[in-house]
């Protein structure tokens, strides 16, 4: 069953008098438990695709269905509620609230949803333990390293048991060691909790943690590569790089 489906999605931007196709007739489906990496050069439309899939932006044409809801046809408030309850976001720059502690940042989506946080304390504690930050729960973001901040962001993304987690270059702002820890965590959520993840990246090593790689170029999906389940596998990395060379990405 598809958790997410994009059907003939087009997105045009108006640049002065010229209209630019950021995405052109893209169709795309993500099954439950999939870990999909979206790759492509700058300007290929991968960020645009992520924005559309997460309901952050509206397509010019085509339909997107997320958790059985046609998000391209919903009002702003309705899409917002879908995002709040069905989607988790991980950003390149972590986007933690500097005035909140790590635990409070994790609890933020529940707070916005008007939930009783007290009831969720054990869950938040467990998530922090999963990301290895139990001892940093009371720390503010400026007391955490970049890798730690991103791990808090991951815990935040999973706190509301989303149908899908969308990650935008989650390792783009991290050193390789922290990056690996973050990717392993994502893989772990995927394997152990059957979480669905779509990750935009330009890093073949990061993409190798996924089990499916979608290549985008000039607004089109040009290839779909299924790879093995072993995270960071050298062979998978080589396969991804080969495709990239072939497609001149």
């Amino acid at each position, binding site marked *: 069953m598809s958790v997410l489906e994009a059907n003939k999605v087009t997105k045009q931007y108006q640049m002065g008098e010229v209209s630019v196709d950021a995405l052109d007739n893209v169709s795309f489906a993500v099954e439950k438990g999939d870990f999909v990496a979206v790759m492509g050069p700058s300007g290929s439309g991968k*960020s645009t695709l992520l*924005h559309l899939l*997460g309901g*952050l*932006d509206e397509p010019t044409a085509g339909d997107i269905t997320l958790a059985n809801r046609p998000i391209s046809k919903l009002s*702003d*408030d309705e899409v*917002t*509620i879908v*995002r*709040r*309850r069905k*989607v*988790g*976001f991980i*950003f*390149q*720059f972590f*986007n933690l*609230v*500097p*005035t*909140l*502690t*790590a*635990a*409070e940042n994790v*609890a*933020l*989506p529940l*707070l*916005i*949803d008007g939930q*009783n*946080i*007290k009831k969720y*304390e054990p869950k*938040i*504690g467990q998530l*922090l333990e999963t990301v290895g930050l*139990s001892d940093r*729960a*009371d720390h503010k973001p400026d007391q955490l390293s970049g890798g730690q901040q991103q791990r808090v962001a991951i815990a*935040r993304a999973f706190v509301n048991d989303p149908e899908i987690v969308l990650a*935008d270059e989650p390792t783009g702002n991290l050193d390789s060691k922290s990056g690996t820890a973050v990717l392993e965590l994502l893989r772990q959520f995927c394997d152990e909790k059957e979480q669905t993840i779509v990750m935009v990246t330009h890093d073949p090593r990061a993409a190798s943690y996924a089990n499916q790689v979608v290549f985008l170029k000039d607004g089109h999906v040009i290839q779909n590569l299924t790879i093995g389940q072993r995270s960071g596998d050298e062979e998978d990395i080589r396969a991804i790089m080969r495709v990239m060379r072939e497609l001149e990405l």
Partner: protein
Amino acid sequence: MFRLLNLIPFNSPLVLVFRNMRARWGRTALTLLGIIVGVAAMVAVQATNQSTLAAISSFFDEASGKSDLLVETAVSNETFPPDTINQIRRFPEVQTIAPGVIGVTIPADEAAQWTEQISIGGTAVPGTNFWLLGRDPTADADVHGYSASAGRLLTANEDGYNILLVADYAADKGLEVGEDLAILTPSQGIVSLRIVGLIPEDGLGITNNGIMGIATIATVQKLFDMGDGLGSLELVVDPAIANNSSALETLRGQIAERLGRDFAVKYPASRGETVAGTFSTYQQGLNFFSVVSLFVGSFLIYNTFAMTIVERTREIGMYRAIGMTRRQVIFLVLAEAISLGVIGSLIGAGAGLLMARSLTQTVSGFSGQAIDQVTTTPQTLLQALSAGILVTILAAAMPALQAARISPIQALRVQGSSDEGRWRQTGLRFGPLTVLASLLIMYRVPLDSDVIFYVGSNAIFAMLLGATLCIPLITGPLERLIRPFILLIFGNEGRLGSSNIQRSQGRTTLTVAALMVGISMVIGIQGMTLSFETDMMEWVNTALGGDLFVQSPLNMRPDVEARLLALEGITAVTRSRYVPSRIFPPYDEDEFSAFVAIDPETYLDVRSMRIQEGPPAEEVMRQLAAGDTIWIGVDIANRFNLHVGDEVVLETRRGRRPFRIVAIVLDFGGGETTTVTGSWGDLRRYFGVTDVSVYAVRLAEGASLEEVTAVIENDLGRSQSLTVESKAEFEQKVRQLSAQAFSLFDVLGLIGLTVGGLGVINTMLMNVLERMRELGGLRSLGMTRRQIRRMILAEAATMGFIGGLFGVAFGTVLADVFLIGLRAIGGYVLTLQTPYAAMAVSFGISFVLAIGAALYPAWRAGQVNIIEAIKHE
């Protein structure tokens, strides 16, 4: 287990609000200051006004004891025959009638230093003279019930000149029971009164600020040549009627009808209302400026909120991405506004009450009304709190909507952004139009005096708002125009700094606007003060004329004129006399007025007049001498819409008489008290008065002011208790009074400027924070810390320059509009004096204030760490 709590329970989105406020404490403090200052100004002014009124009315309440009604002659300060008591006795509802008379004099030992002190109300400051109250001891026991703190009270059969003094006053004079107080009397010279008892300074004892004594009616009548006349009757009415306002009003009407038109039957408190009424124009003016303070405060509030939103774009974008609706975002911003509004308004109200303590002292100083405590009503506080909260919400509303418009995609971008371009568009669309429309309303639309204050005030706000919108339109060209000047001061860094002001248009606009409003307030106030003073001085020099003024605590005999003329060094003398009256204008309600009698024969020998409407001065004198004519001040003419040839009715001792207006002149003689000027003949004829209040004296060429003064005071004056005041002394007094009265306005102007300065600090700090990366870049290119600081200061200086220019331009308009307002509300017709000195100083202040406020931001910019800065997101 981790701790989720951090002061505020983490169970509501409000936690985000409070954490943000705490994290950005500097910005929060600035916003709070904006609210506090505005609300404090409002509360301070209102509380000061209310305290003044409360003090006046409580004074009259306390002094009127248990009396429910008060009977006086229609022409106040006059006396009436004692058989009036018999007419009132016919009313069985009246239980007690307490008659009274007042003789105004001074103690003999003060005669040499005495000069008249006047208040802005145009009346004598209480305590300048000594009041000898003639009372009926038996009736007073029922009405005032004062007791002796030493000695005894007066008895019904008091024999000899015995008096009671207020204990504090007696102590000041070093007098005790059994000793004598010597006073001046009109015909018996110095008379000694035996002190038989002391009373505390409360109840009747607060009359004339306690500078008073109580004697029997017969004593005062005899000493002040009053025959058997009485000055007032205080009536105590059956409590069943006294406690029923409509029954009391009926009784009041019945007594008034029986006594006829020559009498006024009042409620004791109404005397307070008459006094309070003389301050109304002044209080309206203060109210207006206090609201302006809150208006300037709103700019600061808007600016800080708008900046916070830009700064938090990514954070808000993230909230939106993870599921916060637009409504929730608006709630976040408005919740912060409401919290700050409530806190700021509460602190502001407290600060306002504190400020009111010192303001009431100032008002007390020039109004002559002792104000012991600051009083205000819950409504006033509630009004100020609501205004503070509402203004904060309104100022934050636009940033809140801006925040709600933030797209969740912003969370994924590196830097926040703002839509600065719309400032120019909005400015272009509405700015000049709003200014034009408000100017048209102020100058071209004739408005009724009832609504002019409100419409006028709103038009001024609209003008300032329009001017604000015009700022982004002219900032560019103006900046280029003044750039050479900035370059001259700040060198090459000045070029960079100066041109930077075009970058954050919204921020620059509101900062310049806050400076503009502050400066224009100062200039408006200075322009008004200067115009007032200039016209007043012209009046002093023309209408008052003369080189010396001869006065006495008691009115002087007419023969003093001949004796003055006989002195060497005096070429001309003219006399005048003030008597209380009532004016009945054809189209308005009657009110208290003073009838000033002059001698048409000699007036122009000493004085002159500035005629606004009417024939030349000589002809005016001729018509005045013919009788039944008056001239009026241009303020009264405007207020009552009167012209030359119109007739007004005045209350005289011979009943109401019509007087024809022969001229309309510039006149400040009465302050806010309505005065009309008539002839000596009419004074004698209709008021039965022949004595003199003031002689104006013209000295011969080369005569020595000091010598003549000495001769008058020592030779002529000893027996008559004459005192001499030179024109210079009088001028000084008038100047001092006007400076005191306007000092409160200056305080409000200063508040406006302070908020403007806070705005500059806020803006420049924000600019520095936002441009960290750029500052790092400039440092890496070899710019020294000093150069960076100069660049920041140059930017602030440019803002100060433009704010000053706008402020000067609109301040001049404001001064002119204030004069229009003064004409419409108070009737004063003043000629606008452009306050060049104030303009230059204010412009300088704007420039220096902006630089001063930017010192800290500039220092911060200079401290920038290159590596950190270029990594700055």
